[in-house]
């Protein structure tokens, strides 16, 4: 065989391994779906081709931020093959937010824009037609008259006094967490730590939005059933989430919908929002025909929700020996024009701060900010990934400034079992010390004896 298996060390923490039949890690287990993939028999949603399938295409906002003065559907309706042009008035419950299922509000996003658009590419009208070509032609012929509003694209500018208001349903350009303007961590006294530190070191970190870019674009095929139910073939990553949200938007009992899914041609978080199914269901009900709504590549890149752009300021109080005694973090997450999953992503980011390090004084303000950019949402470890980029870059910067080995700096500050985290939780099963030691060993990075003897379960070497 020319391929190699990942080296898995099954000897570490031997006492914590159950023994018995817990033997899968380190062994080769064939993927259950591989045979379908290599024979082409795996059924993706778009492989479903019911008779009389109609096609939906969206007319999207050509503005970042504007009031809608008028919408003219005349020319679109005249395109041969166009069956219906749907507007917000056709959607039973046009306003939603996906996290309402776990009690997060307010509803802040229309399925189809009503009187205002808040980002470039926001859906305004849905054209349903006999063919994809007719749907595209119809969508291109919808005429929208805009009154431009000033847009805001930067998180800190959006929070400034007098910034244009992006989303009226929130009333200000940030999400409110239980009455607070952001998610906060207050642990110990960072200002006192800065006052007695040998060094106070601060840097700024920033990321751009990142599109998940799955090879299969977002989409669904909705097929009305004889019993009045709708069968939804979808590539969503979140079948039940989609079903429940769609039912609320359609104002229909949950049992009127059935989702066939679970086969996702790449998602990476980009397919957890509920963006194609509700309007495709409305179209299927309005025409009593199966309807397909699938993003083209340009839509996938432009309007499917990316990983949020983030900006972090991290300020550390550091002693000459490398101990970090205080860390102050200000995080801005660009949710784009609507909340989607961002309020949760920001909470996750806050839960991850100040990184896997035992720092006795921590202060953090984590802002979920609305701007006139494409709504952002989940992507692989969202909330955590960019925070980690910033936190670990900070560790390297601190090490460089002190002239210290970056791994030793981390070993010195790593959580040990029993440490109290900034969130008042006691750290358990931390293992970071051992992971760093192993990484050093595998990469040939020499560590002094005292560092090699350190352990996450004792305070040896501290």
């Amino acid at each position, binding site marked *: 065989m*020319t391929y190699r298996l990942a080296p898995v060390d099954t000897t570490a923490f031997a006492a914590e391994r159950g023994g018995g039949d817990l033997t899968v890690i380190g062994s080769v287990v064939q*993927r259950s779906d591989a045979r*379908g993939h*290599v*024979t082409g028999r*795996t059924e*993706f949603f*778009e492989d479903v081709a019911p008779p009389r399938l109609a096609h939906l295409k969206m007319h999207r906002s050509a503005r970042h931020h504007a009031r809608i003065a008028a919408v003219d559907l005349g020319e679109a309706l005249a395109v041969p093959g166009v069956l219906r042009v749907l507007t917000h008035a056709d959607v039973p419950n046009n306003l939603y937010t996906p996290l309402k299922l776990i009690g997060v509000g307010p509803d802040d996003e229309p399925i189809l824009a009503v009187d205002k658009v808040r980002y470039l590419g926001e859906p305004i009208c849905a054209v349903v037609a006999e063919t994809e070509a007719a749907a595209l032609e119809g969508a291109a012929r919808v005429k929208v008259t805009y009154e431009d509003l000033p847009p805001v694209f930067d998180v800190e500018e959006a929070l400034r006094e007098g910034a244009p208001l992006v989303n009226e349903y929130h009333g200000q350009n940030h999400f409110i967490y239980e009455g607070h303007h952001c998610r906060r961590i207050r642990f110990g006294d960072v200002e006192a730590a800065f006052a007695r530190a040998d060094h106070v070191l601060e840097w700024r970190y920033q990321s751009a939005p990142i599109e998940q870019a*799955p090879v299969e674009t977002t989409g669904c095929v909705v097929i009305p059933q004889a019993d009045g139910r709708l069968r939804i073939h979808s590539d969503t990553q979140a079948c039940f989430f989609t079903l429940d949200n769609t039912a609320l938007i359609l104002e229909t009992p949950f049992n009127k919908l059935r989702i066939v899914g679970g086969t996702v041609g790449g998602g990476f978080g980009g397919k957890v929002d509920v963006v194609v199914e509700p309007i495709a269901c409305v179209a299927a009900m309005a025409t009593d025909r199966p309807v397909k709504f699938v993003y083209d*590549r340009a839509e996938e890149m432009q309007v499917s929700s990316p990983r949020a752009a983030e900006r972090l300021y991290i300020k550390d109080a550091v002693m000459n020996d490398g101990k970090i005694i205080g860390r102050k973090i200000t995080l801005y997450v660009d949710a784009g024009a609507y909340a989607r999953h961002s309020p949760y992503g920001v909470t996750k980011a806050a839960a991850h701060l100040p990184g896997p390090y035992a720092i006795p004084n921590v202060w953090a303000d984590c802002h979920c900010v609305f701007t006139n950019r494409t709504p952002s949402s989940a992507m692989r470890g969202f909330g955590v990934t960019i925070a980690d980029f910033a936190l670990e870059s900070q560790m390297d910067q601190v090490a460089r400034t002190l002239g210290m080995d970056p791994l030793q700096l981390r070993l010195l500050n790593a959580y040990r079992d029993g440490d109290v985290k900034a969130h008042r939780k006691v750290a358990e099963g931390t293992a970071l010390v051992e992971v760093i030691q192993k990484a050093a060993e595998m990469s040939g990075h020499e560590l002094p004896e005292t560092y090699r003897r350190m352990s996450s379960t004792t305070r040896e070497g501290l």
Partner: protein
Amino acid sequence: MPSQIVSLVVNGEHREFIAAPGATLLACLRESLGLTAAKRGCAQGACGSCTVLVDGRPEASCLVAVETVAGGSVRTLEGVATGGDLDEVQSAFVDCFATQCGFCTSGMIMVAEALLDRNPDPSEEDVIEAISGNVCRCTGYRPIVQAVLEAAARRREEAVTR
């Protein structure tokens, strides 16, 4: 322009169907012939997920107007395995974990088939060059390159024992 009858040899079988003017080979395979292994990732020749072999050459079927290949021979992933068996490329893709979501797999395997048909002993660079028009967002490519090399080795071994 009226629709026309197009005939093709698809996976060794003679097929005839009606195609609208400008219909792509991809649309005809998927919609007229029910062969859905070839996928639409971009419809603009950029991702390779729609790759099939036209007279032995890998082509992005989303860019091929079907009338331009009328009378030709087309091979899709459905025509690779015979009688439920996997060929060397398919089994190597399974064993090397060269598929994750599976959406790029059909195009990747067809490109690999074309490569191994003309070069039974490709170098790693040859494989990378061959799959350079195919996007995979899941695997990071490494396992795919290894699978194609492994498939080549298995096929050479087969040829010796045969």
